[in-house]
């Protein structure tokens, strides 16, 4: 969303209706997903999505730490979304700021909605997301990475969780905003879908949209999630063919 008093707003849509990187309104940025790049984690995934680079790892089911969070009838799912100091233009102070804590919370709640947590009472399933390079849409990239990492760790889930943000630029609804579109656009609406039920487990929005625009945004996002879903499944299939490290052939 446009910061008041910030630099001049760039042209976000060409006369031909193309975006600053040449995409059409309903076009995703290129996405590459690799499952299992890390050796210490029980499951992991690396996602390059446009100019985002996001690593996720899963540990567990394991002992709950701190102990008083332990639940007798199910596993607790703890999520930590963190941005590396060098992942953004102006260096970010290390540690979780309020934004990261909010995102960690909604991502944890999204996964609690699909993980079969009652199969592992008194344990913790820890989901870690590290944003190494950020260019709008990192929470969705993090969800996608963490979802593949959970599957890589063998955690039973109702479904994978594809995620994407829909936004509004120059008055048009557009899929998968990149940084300049996010900074100078009029709305941003990230969502995560359970493909088999068609329901959303993460949904946030900021900006302004008419109810009709919002309705179309939901449809566009759901369609985008389905494309990403296929890439996630392919990454898990490829897992058994390659164990390359992140950036190996990037």
């Amino acid at each position, binding site marked *: 969303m446009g*910061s*008041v008093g910030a630099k001049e707003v760039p042209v976000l849509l060409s006369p031909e209706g193309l975006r600053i990187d040449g995409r059409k309104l309903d076009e995703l940025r290129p996405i590459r997903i690799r499952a299992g790049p890390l050796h210490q984690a029980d499951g992991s995934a690396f996602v390059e999505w446009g100019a985002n680079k996001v690593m996720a790892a899963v540990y567990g089911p394991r002992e709950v730490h701190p102990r008083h969070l332990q639940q007798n009838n199910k596993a607790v799912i703890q999520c930590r979304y963190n941005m590396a100091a060098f992942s953004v233009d102006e260096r970010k102070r290390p540690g979780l700021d309020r934004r990261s804590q909010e995102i960690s919370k909604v991502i944890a*709640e999204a996964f609690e909605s699909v993980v079969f947590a009652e199969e592992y009472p008194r344990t913790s399933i820890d989901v870690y997301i590290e944003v190494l390079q950020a260019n709008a849409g990192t929470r969705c990239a993090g969800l996608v990475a963490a979802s593949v990492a959970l599957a890589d760790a063998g955690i039973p889930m109702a479904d994978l969780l594809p995620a994407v943000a829909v936004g509004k630029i120059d008055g048009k609804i557009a899929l998968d905003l990149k940084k300049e579109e996010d900074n100078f656009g009029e709305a941003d609406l990230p969502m995560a879908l359970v493909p088999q039920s068609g329901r959303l487990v993460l949904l946030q929005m*900021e900006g*302004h949209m008419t109810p009709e625009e919002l309705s179309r945004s939901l449809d566009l996002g759901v369609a985008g999630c389905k494309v990403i879903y296929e890439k996630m499944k392919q990454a898990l299939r490829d897992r058994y063919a390659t164990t390359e490290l992140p950036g190996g052939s990037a």
Partner: protein
Amino acid sequence: MSGEVASELRTTHVLDLAASGKRLDGRALDEYRAVSIEPGFIATADGSALVRLGDTVVAAGVKLELGKPFPDTPNAGVLTTNAELVPLSSPTFEPGPPQPGAIEVSRVVDRAIRAAETIDLARLCVTPGEKTWVCYVDLHVLDHSGNLIDAAMLAGVSALAHAVVPAKRFGVAEADYALAVGHLPIECTFVRLGDAIVVDPTFDEEQAAQGRLTIATDELGRVVAMQKGLVGAFSPDDVRSMVSRALAHGDRLRAAARGGPA
């Protein structure tokens, strides 16, 4: 009977009631609790309000102080929203640094105020790059009987709508003047209870909920912010339906926040 067992029984009861279109406190599924707003409750604040939403009570205080603009927005004022879910207000809150729940409340309220452009930040600037008003919106929860976000939002916009810029005290004008406010966003929160989706949940309904969705709308009939919370899921059609309900509730509540009858 342990607290855990009691809580499970209550959850079952809440869900059973909802299945037959009823609620523990007798409300209809789309009925909001009684709202009362007392502006000016805090004399030490530049703007304030005490909001009661059923048994939920939130005090909001606005303070304006002079400070420096951010380097990347030299012509803009600064807005800071903070929510304190103090342990006085609920057996479930603990002393210590802000918990994720408090952070979520403050961020969701903050997003709505920014997106609705309630405050024209450019007008807060006194000397570009040098001096600006910093506007603090502090939300202090006193009694947590459910639906904190809506109550906090109402308290926040009411406090802003009645705030006075202390320009004389800070020596930048001859007289104090009312803070200019634009659109007032109103949050409207729903939870799923089985197949039913109810508005303005109580604490017990939140405990039983299978998903929560908060929708902020402004007086132009636009959606300016949303936040899904808790474990659970909503279909796009669920969302569309809640958006229309949120718009209706928003109009009524906005009048109350501006000073009219709720």
